[in-house]
């Protein structure tokens, strides 16, 4: 079962940027790409826990600010020679509002 709740307006996330979203103890990073797609990943780099929301967004990826690991926004998988995966959450945009599937949070907790 999906449970969509609105979390912010699209315009509140800078294009090619991110916002940090706190869901209880869980920090989530909301990314907005150059083509206005939005993705949500856990705000913790699989490498050493770097805050992904502080990284640089490019294409469909974000580069962690600490050691430049590149993470695919869609799947949460680390790209290139490194290995790892960060939890991703379902989001959708409707009339400029970003919704997050809170049901998908349970599995991450």
């Amino acid at each position, binding site marked *: 079962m999906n449970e969509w*709740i609105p*979390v912010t307006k699209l315009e509140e996330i*800078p294009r090619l940027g991110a916002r940090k979203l706190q*869901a209880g103890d869980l920090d989530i990073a909301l990314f907005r790409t150059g083509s206005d797609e939005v993705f949500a990943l856990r705000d913790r780099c699989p490498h*050493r826990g770097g805050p992904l929301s*502080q990284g640089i967004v490019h294409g469909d990826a974000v580069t962690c600010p*600490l050691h430049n690991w590149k993470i695919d926004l869609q799947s949460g998988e680390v790209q290139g020679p490194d290995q790892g995966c960060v939890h991703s959450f379902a989001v959708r945009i409707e009339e400029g509002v970003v919704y997050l599937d809170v049901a998908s949070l349970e599995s991450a907790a």
Partner: protein
Amino acid sequence: MKKQKLILIGNGMAGVRTLEELLKLEAELYDIIVFGAEPHPNYNRIMLSPVLAGEKQVEEIVLNSREWYAENRITLHTGDPVTAIDRKARQITTASGMSASYDRLLLATGSNPFIIPVPGHDLPGVVGFRDIQDVETMLDSARQYKKAVVIGGGLLGLEAANGLKKNGMDVTVVHLMDILMERQLDKPAAALLKASLEEGGLKFLMEAQTEAILGDQRVIGVRFKDGSEIDTDLVVMAVGIRPNTALANAAGLHCERGIVVNDTLQTFDPRIYAVGECVQHRNNTYGLVAPLFEQAKVCANHLAQLGYGRYQGSVTSTKLKVTGIDLFSAGEFNEAEGDETLVLQDPAQGVYKKLVIRDNRIKGAVMYGDTMDGSWYFQLLREATDISSFRNTILFGQHDLGDAGHGEETRVGMLSDEAEICGCNGVCKGEIVNAITSQGLFTLDEVRAHTKASASCGSCTGMVEALLASTVGEGYAATPSKKAVCGCTSYSHDEVRKAISELELKSMPELFDKLDWGTPDGCPSCRPALNYYLLAAWPAEYRDDAQSRFINERAHGNIQKDGSYSVVPRMFGGLCSADDLRAIADVADKFEVPEIKVTGGQRIDLFGVKKEQLPAVWKDLSEAGFVSGHAYGKALRTVKTCVGKNWCRFGTQDSTGLGVKLEELTWGSWMPHKFKLAVSGCPRNCAEATIKDLGVVCVDSGYELHIGGNGGIKVRVTDLLCKVESEQEVLEYTAAFIQCYREEAHYLERTAPWVERVSLNYVKQRVVEDKVGRKALYERFKLSQQYAQVDPWKARAEGAETHEFTPLSIDRMRAAS
């Protein structure tokens, strides 16, 4: 043009390294033929110890495979020693009867283990420790026999003993002196080493002089001068090496202990070069790879006919490659009369460190147990750095010396870019970090392949891994180079800058489009560079793109390892009032700032501020009259000043006042890299102006302007740009210099390498000689400052970019909906 013929004799580490360096410079100059006595392609001799200890396989230590020779069109003859050189005919002959002629000859015949000529030294079961064959002999013996004696308690002997022990043999080390590794260690360190090796099961016979090796068919024992004897099945002689000069000597080349060469690695016959252990240079011979690799570089430069390298000799340092033992030594570690020593001893932890100091400079170092700071001490030693200012804490290591504003967590993080990480190959931190970021390297093997760091003795592997794991600090973006900006394009930095101004590109999407960028919105390497280039080219029109800045510049603070930020308010020229201090103290109290520190640039740093608190902190500071100190950015950092003539009896001008004016002129300016200024009131130079990007030194008759300096471990002293007479000229020349750097340097290129790249004369021409050009630069700088001098803190305190500092919250949304 017909290619010249180059022959290399000696297929070992120094010779082949020379070829590698040569190929990098001039791949097409020579037809190259290599002759090696050993049946193997070039391998890493250093790693014979781990091979003996069973930690590595022979295949793993090959440095240049046969394919490498083939790919580089080098003809390789292995297992065929050269037996004669005919210098008149310029021909060599080999054992198998082959002959070949040369235009240039390179000798790299290495050295031979010294076998003490006692009776029985030629019995089966007596070996040196030099090549793969020796190791195979030892491993064979270990399979068949029980007991081994190693003669020589130096580096090589102990590594051999350790290896044999690992192979299950009962090993006794026989040493002539009462100190192990006496050429590298002092008494206390040697005692610690001996104790821990004994714990590992090695036995020692100290102060024992070998008189004869006993046996008939094969060695059965050793007899000493005092008449005592010991049974053994294997004797390893590791008492030293002798440069292998036989071939050169027979060819009539001048040899003493080694083949004598000059600073260009040429022998007395100008067509013949020599490198490596077989060489004697300025009366020194070397037995470690670091100096040999330096020789290789210089020699290659001359073989490539560039002719500007000079080899001036080396200072060496040593590490022992016995797993579980950390030991480092360099320089004159036994104090002479009048020297001071600093000693740290922690017997419980098995740590011992000693530094020998003369005239406030490190002359030697011995470390046991904790060798992490070895490379730092070694750097201080080689650069003869005056240590008086941090002498109190020097033994605790570099991490104890903070440069404020940087939260790097590890000691490698604290090292400067110029700090040498790999001593063997002379690779410094900056190179490694750059390779990691620009080439996208992620594994140790890749770093080794790209930089050679830790590819020789491997002692620095830990540090290289640490660097890989935490590529922190300023180096996490594109490297300045003549090559493409990054993988998204084939254009170089200069080409991109030119296109921005000629095609009037004023936004990033436009630039991506016109220059056919390979990615829709760049990558973390090019975006910050492009953002800066656009900003520098169109100060009035371009809108800064926060999403193309690294987090420190986006958040206007230095991110610390715990995710908190540090805040440095600007204090113009380092001057402040009691009210200023009170305001800072109030902020510190109100926000419970955990730590306050005065920075090297004469500012006050507040540590541990939470990101969410930043706008409120800035608001209070801003109301008290402070603006951002930009301690986090590729920007104008600080103007450091001395008290000058207002207070100091030596002062010639008002250095503090001038510093304030300079900082008022320049603050807020974004740069290709960080930029530091200083003003000293007289040549005593208390503000250290000669290691700044631009330093002013006041003299009676005016002001000297110095440029391109750099502090840090590897200091670059400034070059004198010119002398001017008035404060107004100081301001104008400074602004012109900064603007020239802003317009022409590559992103992430400090002034020091920039000045070296474009040459001092070029900068003089632009800033000093070309009067009209200088004025124009000055005007362009002032124009750009109109837009740059907007305090980012005040703006954010007043609500700009709130999204950066306020996280969203689900619970809040839920409550609202």
